[in-house]
């Protein structure tokens, strides 16, 4: 069977998790030309509680549409980190928003303060999801940065393009600093 890469994005309702999932799927599928399936938590639990979006990326047609064992888990709050960490593939990557995730279950986790960065550098907490996407793409190369930017700009409300471009850049820079060991 071909290449299959599974991403689970999680956090609380209102953090833009599902929008991030759609953008990631669009970047990988429409712009990078891969096969993608995107699913999400649906129903009352999505409001206020734990929100979850999954993206499966493959070079061939995707059979089972949901994540089986995620290769990459983004946890934007403590609750989702606790709930989903043990689903992660053994060599999988855990990325957490250290603004909210204080108890990190593994020494291999990558902790970056997405929400704090959005607040401090962009004065808009709501773009934390875009900051996170920029970091994820840089850390894992799951999608190309050019595709990600195109997908972000294609989905965000008119008039917010500059803000979102800066949010992406903030995430990319944070990831680069992390990779350089800072």
């Amino acid at each position, binding site marked *: 069977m071909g290449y299959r890469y599974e991403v689970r994005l999680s956090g609380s309702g209102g953090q833009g998790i599902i929008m991030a999932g*759609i953008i990631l799927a669009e970047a990988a599928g429409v712009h990078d030309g891969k096969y993608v399936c995107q699913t999400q938590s649906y129903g009352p639990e999505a409001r206020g509680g734990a929100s979850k979006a999954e993206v499966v990326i493959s070079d061939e047609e995707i059979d089972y*549409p949901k994540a089986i064992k995620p290769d990459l888990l983004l946890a934007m709050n403590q609750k989702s980190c606790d709930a989903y960490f043990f689903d992660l593939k053994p060599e999988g990557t855990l990325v957490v928003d250290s603004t909210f995730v204080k108890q990190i279950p593994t020494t291999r986790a990558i902790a970056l303060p997405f929400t704090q960065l959005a607040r401090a550098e962009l004065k808009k907490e709501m773009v934390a999801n875009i900051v996170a996407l920029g970091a994820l793409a840089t850390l894992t190369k799951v999608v190309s940065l050019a595709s990600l930017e195109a997908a972000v700009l294609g989905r965000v409300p008119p008039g917010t393009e500059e803000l979102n471009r800066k949010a992406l850049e903030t995430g990319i820079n944070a990831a680069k600093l992390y990779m350089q060991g800072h």
Partner: protein
Amino acid sequence: MNEQATTGRQVLLQGNEAMVEGALAAGCTFFAGYPITPATEISEVMSVKLPAVGGTFVQMEDEIASMGAIIGASLAGAKSMTATSGPGFSLMQENLGFACVAEVPCVVVNVMRGGPSTGLPTNVSQADVMQARWGTHGDHPIIVLAVSTTKECFDITVKAFNLAEKYRTPVIILSDEVVGHTREKISLPHPGEIEVIDRIRPNMPPEWYVPYEDNSRGVPPMGIFGDGYRYHVTGLVHDVRGFPTQRPDEIVPFLNRIHRKISQHFFDILMVDEELTEDAEILVVAYGSVARSARRAVREARERGVKAGMMQLITLWPFPRQILEPYLSRVKAVLVPELNMGQVSREVKRINQGATRVETINRIDGNLITPEEILVRLIKM
């Protein structure tokens, strides 16, 4: 059915949204419906897209009226559609029977959720398979198709309209919560790449038109309201002129004809998607979202040396007996995983007549069967 077209426009769509694209590509110009989870996106997107191409979208007071409206629109010449889920589909049954008997082409989508009654609105299920076949009363012919991917949501919706027009019958599409809400990248074909079929209309002088007269196909040409071909439309059993009859010599040919028009075209209507079935010792029969789990399980089973094969049913009714039967006498066992207590497996057992062993996996907790559940069973079998 699974090759990816390389030409068209690449888009990321939910299954529900792809159904709207398919309907528009097939020439749908009228939609009447009442929003219901998990089918709402179909109405929502239709309400924007249909008026934009000069069509009509009506949000009705309920599903009984929705079904009535699409029948009326079709009689007036429009290709029409409605979309709902279990509770609404229950309400549509009476008028669905009317469409069968009056032979009115239309497409009815049921995005299945957990039942019975209002059940589990946000959860996936496949428990309306028998309802789609027998929900409306009386012996009646019906075509029911099941979709499993976003691409199939597009392709099969086009096909559903074509079959409805070709055979003058309602066509039901069974989707489910997982298929309806999963977003996938698909290529939307250019209009010229899609076959679109329109109903045969009468071409004799209007005064010679006999609206329900038999012919070799069993499908009479359909006059549309306002074009001069006046005729009587009724749910009562009628004679060739469309008027109610109680004469046995008119009742029997009428009922036989409406069944024959479907049964004599089985091979045009029956659609399955087979993978690795040629040398299969265990055949997995699945449809809808579960077909995706089954497909993965079959591929993984092969990697472990288990000779499994995948038979995805796209046409559920008429049941693809002619395609399945040859396998039943050849394979060691059949496995039917489904999200109900055994609706398609019951049909497989009925046609099996003891030829092979039929096992089932039935999940009714509102979640999709996983590939692992099927794989574990395949290895045991």
